[in-house]
């Protein structure tokens, strides 16, 4: 199948390893991601004031751009997913905002595009059984903590395609790859999000709570689905070893990096070397790279 793909600003720059692993893994699964031409940033946060229609223009433009060539849009960055999905819902349900936005950007969009997250696409369009059959290098014995964060879960009625309190789609995918998903409590807790820009020490502590929960559950690696979650969880671990006694660093990968490796693809372009906690010794010890 073919589907329009929105990389978003971070996957086009800091998250290139994520982007490349997504494109290659999806191609290996028989899904061709067609990059949306002339795309723009979604805004990286859904505007929460009822009269803030201006901040909906960016994501609305992405949806309008998609509608000209496709009725489906997928994205790997879960923040983009959250913003696009919620904006689309507003455009479907709020006649007043729909009219104002259409007038402003000179379009006639009714909210017809279906927005999906890449994990959702893998689950619903490819199927975990088919993924299992395509595995060339099973992740045998790798204890993985699947981290969902906020963006694919909340608000549940607007964005969730999984159980918002105990999601399992990512655990199911990891199991299909041959890994051992650990049971842990912080899989849906916030990493600190944009607080990192203003109060990094608070984001750091929020991330510590996620990391330590994964470690306590016996995980060897955490997989993330959002570049900001990945950064917040990964970035401060050296500092955390100094401030939190007994803390042991744990690598944080994008789930698609592990997916691509399990599918037998060459991880040379996935920027594993750019992660703050080097995941390569672990992957080497498991015979995966």
């Amino acid at each position, binding site marked *: 199948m073919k589907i329009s793909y929105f990389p978003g600003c971070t996957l086009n720059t800091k998250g290139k390893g994520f982007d490349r692993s997504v494109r290659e893994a999806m191609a290996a699964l028989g899904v061709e991601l067609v990059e949306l031409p002339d795309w723009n940033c979604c805004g990286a946060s859904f505007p929460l004031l009822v009269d803030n229609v201006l901040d909906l223009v960016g994501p609305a433009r992405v949806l309008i751009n998609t509608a000209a060539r496709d009725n489906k849009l997928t994205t790997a960055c879960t923040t983009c997913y959250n913003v696009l999905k919620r904006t689309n819902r507003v455009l479907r349900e709020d006649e007043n905002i729909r009219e104002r936005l259409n007038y402003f950007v000179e379009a006639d969009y009714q909210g017809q595009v279906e927005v999906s997250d890449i994990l959702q696409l893998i689950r619903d369009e490819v199927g975990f059984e088919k993924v299992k059959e395509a595995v060339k290098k099973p992740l045998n014995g790798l204890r993985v903590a699947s981290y969902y964060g906020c963006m694919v879960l909340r608000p549940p009625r607007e964005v969730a395609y999984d159980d918002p309190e105990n999601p399992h789609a990512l655990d199911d995918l990891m199991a299909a790859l041959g890994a051992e998903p650990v049971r842990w409590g912080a899989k849906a807790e916030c990493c600190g999000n944009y607080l990192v*820009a203003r109060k990094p020490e608070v984001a750091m502590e929020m991330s510590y709570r996620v990391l330590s929960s994964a470690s306590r559950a016996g995980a060897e690696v955490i997989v993330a689905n959002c570049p900001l979650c990945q950064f917040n969880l990964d970035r401060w671990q050296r500092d955390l070893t100094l401030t939190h006694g007994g803390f042991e660093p744990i690598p944080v990968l994008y789930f698609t990096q592990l997916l691509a490796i399990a599918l037998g693809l060459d991880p040379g372009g996935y920027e594993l070397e750019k992660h703050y906690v080097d995941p390569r010794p672990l992957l080497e010890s498991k015979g995966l790279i």
Partner: protein
Amino acid sequence: MSTVVSLEKYIHNDLVRRVEELSGQDLLACYQCGECSAGCPAAFAMDLLPSQVIRLLQLGQVEEVLNSATIWFCAACQTCYARCPKGVDLSRIMEALRELAMERDGDTLKHTEIPKEELEAFPQQAIIAGFRKYTL
């Protein structure tokens, strides 16, 4: 001769009305169960708990809330909204409060205050979302 004193204009004052308008939320829907405070992942850093923010707003104490650190520690993770039995979207109320505080005191994030090495390391979305939340 008796004088009737109405507390309405003190409690449901103009600032409270603006919070309601900007957030689209009914502050009186909250019955103080505390679910939001119990689940908030940033509560450890807050001087007012999320449920206390709503309680103060119900009592018209907007200035006290605008002067608290809490409104800047909400990461809009929406855990409170997902769990609120009354469907109050507290993250929208927090956004309205940030808006009012910045109308009063100006932007709270300047790019010159972010260390250069962090600015270079941040994923783009951290910078974009940060400036959307902390500047007008």
